């Protein structure tokens, strides 16, 4: 059975973007620091630049790029310019949104879905035997709350941002028990993979 895996780069103090994030400043002030581990030039397109990676960082990025579908929040999708409708290899993209999209954000491989469980289930079906890449803080939180997130792959960057947008925020006070499946120390980043212990 394939899995829904949240992939996010996070600072040690829990931020996935700096302050003042928004259109044109997708990672917020200074937030590009979080992507330096895989981008030589953090402003450039992720598809063009993973070739320079090696070792653990390359393995992890290869995993990301071998997922068979993407579930992403509308905000993350739009600040990324919708990846021009193609995150990687043309795999289907399911965008979590309560509203119908603007014309500028419609592409053939992109489906708008208003329920996170529905989005993950459809993405799993579409991905066949491959895993589903879940991306975005709000989407990750919703997927956790709905019980449809299987694993978290965090790229823990050794920096404190101080301010910004957190990966885990405004969650219900219910404990979510995890199991550390794998910890890998790459250059400038640690890759931590956790399984959500739904039985706990």
């Amino acid at each position, binding site marked *: 059975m394939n899995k829904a895996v949240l992939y996010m780069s996070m600072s040690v103090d829990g931020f996935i973007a700096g302050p003042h994030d928004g259109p044109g400043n997708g990672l917020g002030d200074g937030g590009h620091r979080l992507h330096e581990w895989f981008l030589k030039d953090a402003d450039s397109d992720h598809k063009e630049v993973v070739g320079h990676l090696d070792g653990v960082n390359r393995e992890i990025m290869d995993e990301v790029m071998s997922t068979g579908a993407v579930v992403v929040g509308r905000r993350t999708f739009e600040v990324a310019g919708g990846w021009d409708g193609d995150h990687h290899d043309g795999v289907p993209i399911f965008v979590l949104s309560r509203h119908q999209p603007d014309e500028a954000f419609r592409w053939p491989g992109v489906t708008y879905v208003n329920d996170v469980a529905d989005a993950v289930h459809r993405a799993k079906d579409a991905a066949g035997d491959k895993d589903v890449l879940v991306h975005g803080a709000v989407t990750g939180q919703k997927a956790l709350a709905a019980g449809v997130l299987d694993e978290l792959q965090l790229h823990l960057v050794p920096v404190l941002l101080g301010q910004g947008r957190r990966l885990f925020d405004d969650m219900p*006070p219910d404990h979510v028990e995890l199991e550390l499946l794998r910890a890998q120390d790459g250059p400038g980043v640690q890759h931590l993979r956790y399984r959500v212990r739904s039985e706990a």
Partner: protein
Amino acid sequence: MATIRLYMTTSLDGYVAGPHDSVDAPMGDGGFRLFNWLDRRDDPGPSGQVYAESMATRAVIAGRRTYEHAGRWKGDHHDGVPIFILTHDVPDDPPPGSVRYVTDVHECAAQARAAAGDGDVMVHGAGAAQALLRAGQLDELELHVVPVLLGQGRRLLDDLPAEQVELDLVRRLTDPEVDEPAQHVMHLRYRVRRP
């Protein structure tokens, strides 16, 4: 010179206590979940090693909230080492045991380093950690990261200025074999890079 090192247990989502923490409930609602790993503090292995290191420190810095919530450690955190309590509001009653009150963060750091001699200084509590970080006086962080999301509570790192502080991972220790998943923990030691 003595290293000033934060020792704190935190959930993966960055909380050091659950919601509604108080003197009567120092870990807040459900926050004692974070301390399950301490069941193994005397065992051989990473958790035993890290705990022993923390107990070998030669001075303690803590904030007022942590100090009061811990019942002032009855004046002795471990081995009677000097305890420096960073507080804006010095209590009227004399400090118990080896406790001293300090109102200035730089003064607090200097006194603790001097007291620790060739040992290290343990910092405990979110408030003291943030104050020392802001003052550029925190040298290292030893985070015991517990594989749980608490969802709400008191954060370790909160309300810091929007200034990037670069860290270097010095060490990662994980318990390779833990039968009880709730006792699992990952110990991450970071050094604060000076600009």
